[in-house]
């Protein structure tokens, strides 16, 4: 049984080493590239340090007790004492978890409120629409729209406004920060920022059915001047997003290619999409019975 304690420690160690050596490039959550992901990363590390303490104490006690008090041929006549409990000890090991929980709860609450604070300058707004199964990004200020990728200026807070035409998905860019649901009929938001230019994986996190695994996107952070140039050029040269085209895009189905449009869809389309579906009978499947 002592072997098992060691096996468990052995399993934890690589994880610790990963953290310490900084070999975390492939571990998105532990490789933050923006202030939100950074704050979350700090909290993750702090919580990991606290729980490691608990793990070490329990594993050491567990191993010692098993070695020391296991039944051996030479202690078969040992009769254990008839202890009922020990109030002092029990208070002690109630207080230790209380302290650990407080040590974690206080920064948790601080960061929870901190991340919701209004930024000083008005952030750039991008509307995100999760459709089955593709991501649509509308730039209301630039008057352009993209599908399955989103260019953003680095070093600037972006207010992603989250919507859905169909099922509830979750918008997640691990290197920039944690996720938020995209709910049909309710607009949520997520404030993210990339510190440096770069390309980041974006994911669907909340299951939406058949094409779920195929619904991914890229976040491409550019230097602000490059972003402005891209937005201007797109506005000038990209094909116009028509109503028909938009309806075609949001129809249920897998769409993995990246699309770029000038012009944007009308928000009322999203609001009425369910009624729209009912009218045209595009319920995405055959009716029951």
């Amino acid at each position, binding site marked *: 049984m002592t072997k098992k304690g060691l096996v468990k420690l052995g399993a934890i160690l690589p994880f610790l080493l990963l953290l310490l050596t900084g070999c975390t490039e492939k571990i998105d959550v532990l490789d933050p590239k923006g202030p939100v992901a950074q704050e979350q990363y700090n909290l993750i590390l702090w919580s990991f340090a606290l729980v490691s303490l608990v793990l070490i104490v329990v594993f050491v006690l567990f191993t010692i007790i098993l070695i020391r008090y296991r039944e051996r041929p030479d202690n078969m006549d040992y009769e254990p004492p008839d202890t*009922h409990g020990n109030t002092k000890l029990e208070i002690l090991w109630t207080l230790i978890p209380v302290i650990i929980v407080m040590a974690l709860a206080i920064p948790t609450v601080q960061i929870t409120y901190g991340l919701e604070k209004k930024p000083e300058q008005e952030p750039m707004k991008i509307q995100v629409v999760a459709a089955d199964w593709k991501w649509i990004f509308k730039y209301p200020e630039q008057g352009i729209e993209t599908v399955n990728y989103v260019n953003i200026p680095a070093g600037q807070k972006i207010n992603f406004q989250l919507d859905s035409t169909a099922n509830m998905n979750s918008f997640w860019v691990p290197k920039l920060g944690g996720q938020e649901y995209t709910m049909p009929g309710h607009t949520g938001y997520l404030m993210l920022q990339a510190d440096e230019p770069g390309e980041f994986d974006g994911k669907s996190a909340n299951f939406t059915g058949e094409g779920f695994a195929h619904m991914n996107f890229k976040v491409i952070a550019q230097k602000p001047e490059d972003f402005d140039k891209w937005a201007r050029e797109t506005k000038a040269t990209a094909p116009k997003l028509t109503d028909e085209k938009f309806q075609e895009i949001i129809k249920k189905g897998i769409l993995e290619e990246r699309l770029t449009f000038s012009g944007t869809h009308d928000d009322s389309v999203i609001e009425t999409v369910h009624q729209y579906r009912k009218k045209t009978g595009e319920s995405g499947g055959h009716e029951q019975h």
Partner: protein
Amino acid sequence: MRWDEFFVTGDPMIYAADASIVLATIAIVAVLTYFKKWKWLWTEWLTTVDHKKIGIMYILAALLMMFRGGVDGLLMRIQLAAPEMKFLESEHYNQIFTTHGTIMILFMAMPFIFGMINVAMPLQIGARDVAYPWLNALSFWLFFAGAMLFNLSFVIGGSPDAGWTSYTPLASLEHSPGVGQNYYLWGLQLSGIGSLASGINFIVTILRMRAPGMTLSKMPMFTWSVLITSVIIVYAFPILTVALALLTFDRMFGTHFFTVDGGGMPMMWVNLFWMWGHPEVYIVILPAFGIFSEIVSTFSRKRLFGHNAMVISMIAIAGLSFIVWAHHFYTMGAGPGVNSFFSVSTMLIAIPTGVKIFNWLATMYKGRISFTVPMLWTLAFIPNFVVGGVTGVMLAAAPADYQYHNSYFLISHFHYVLIGGVVFGMIAGLYYWWPKLFGFKLNERQGKHGFWWFMIGFNLTFFPQYILGLMGMPRRIYMYTNTDWSALNMASTIGTFMQGVGFLIICYNIYWSIRYAPRTNEADPWNGRTLEWAIPSPAPYYNFSRIPEIKEMDPVWYAKKRGEKVIDGPLEKFHMPSNSGVPVIMGGLFFVFGFGFVFGWFWMAIPAFIGILICMATRSFDYDDGYYVSVDEVKKIEGV
């Protein structure tokens, strides 16, 4: 509806399943007929109200469902072993992870705990049966009807594929138009009503039927865990019943409780589901805690450390379990106030749980620990559950959860607590109480092999998943392209197969022991402490020929020390409940009723419902109030 819409077609695996179901049915019928066992099956098992036999049937069903859910798990892991695998289609994979989750929680963990409770709780409190034996049988048959209905979806009509959480709008008629979701609703509804009845039954049994002198403070820890669990069941399950009914109305009658249009709120389903769902995880874990408490104490030869603290901790966990549900969806964005509240309330659960862990360690401290198979599972529980528990605390921190949510980090966390806690606990309990039920121990050597295969396989499966989660692998994807995830996924798949080997060894262990293990019929094979070890093994159908007077905790242990007998005094005739065929018939009718509703066939559902009403009337006018067991018969059975 055409026949090829009724039967699931087109997949060779499904045809294989069809064939094996037909063959297994023919084989069972043939064996029962050949050995003339139909009458035995009916009188001894199907109509029984004996809590021990009902418990055995629950456990048997749980093991079958563990096999089914385990095969689902294996199929998923094969598909995820390498990037861009072509083993399963998306649709098939989605059905499999949905049935895996639903079956493991509701049709494996739940019957396993009900099995353990039925087997051991009445024996621990010195009762001859539960308070409502007839209702107990009905609970079992409702569970069984629900489980069979749910499993039938695999070959008839198609399985649900919206996840075991069945979130709306995905589970609504618009997005899941097939009958699979109806199976989910009716399978859970039927078994859920059975669970609720069980909860009531166990509360009354524990409060009203303890042996004289057994005050609550002298009650064994497992029985305490059952009492607290049952209270949670009674408060939590009605929420599930209502939520399922509302979604059924949405799907069948066009209401708008959880739709997006028509004023419905999909997030309301998510709230209701977890208001039941979070207490549910404590419903399955607390009895496991109770079993571990009994086993730690027995095999350390020491009294359980801090009885009162253990009870208070469980009550605290039960209370907190009702105010943490929103931690399942911090990312809904309900605002910092809500998320802060649920973060802190969730973290608080670590305190009573920590107290329990330390008390178990303190029980072993200065003990003499023998490594029997039940004790091995209990010992393995401590480090594994602590890993699952502390990652639960990490998940509780809302901002950090924004990164873990819906990822494999979460998957790994709840498998560590549910397998490391519940499954380990149920297997430990099975090995521990087996000799009381059957008069012989399961082979220890085979049991240890099974244990190590399962334990190592379990860690190999789930530890890599923590890292995969941090690498950004979302749950419920049927396929991935990222080659960075391959190695850890392959390790995880290999671990799953090792767990499968462990499970098969345990099954073989049971088979081998039934055939060859020596029948020792020892009353007290483990040097036990609580009342169940005072009666003969296998336990006679009436449990206690005389009801003992209890003066202390662990009465059998202290009586052995003083050389006294726990069960003594003159024999007298006593009263027992009669068997009844009504519960199993009602179970069958409920099955037909549910099946009718799944397909919207009222011509089938309404007659079945009338049948159910007739059964209830039959029960109401049933004046058979049991029979007496004579002194002579007890003497004959116990050989005195």
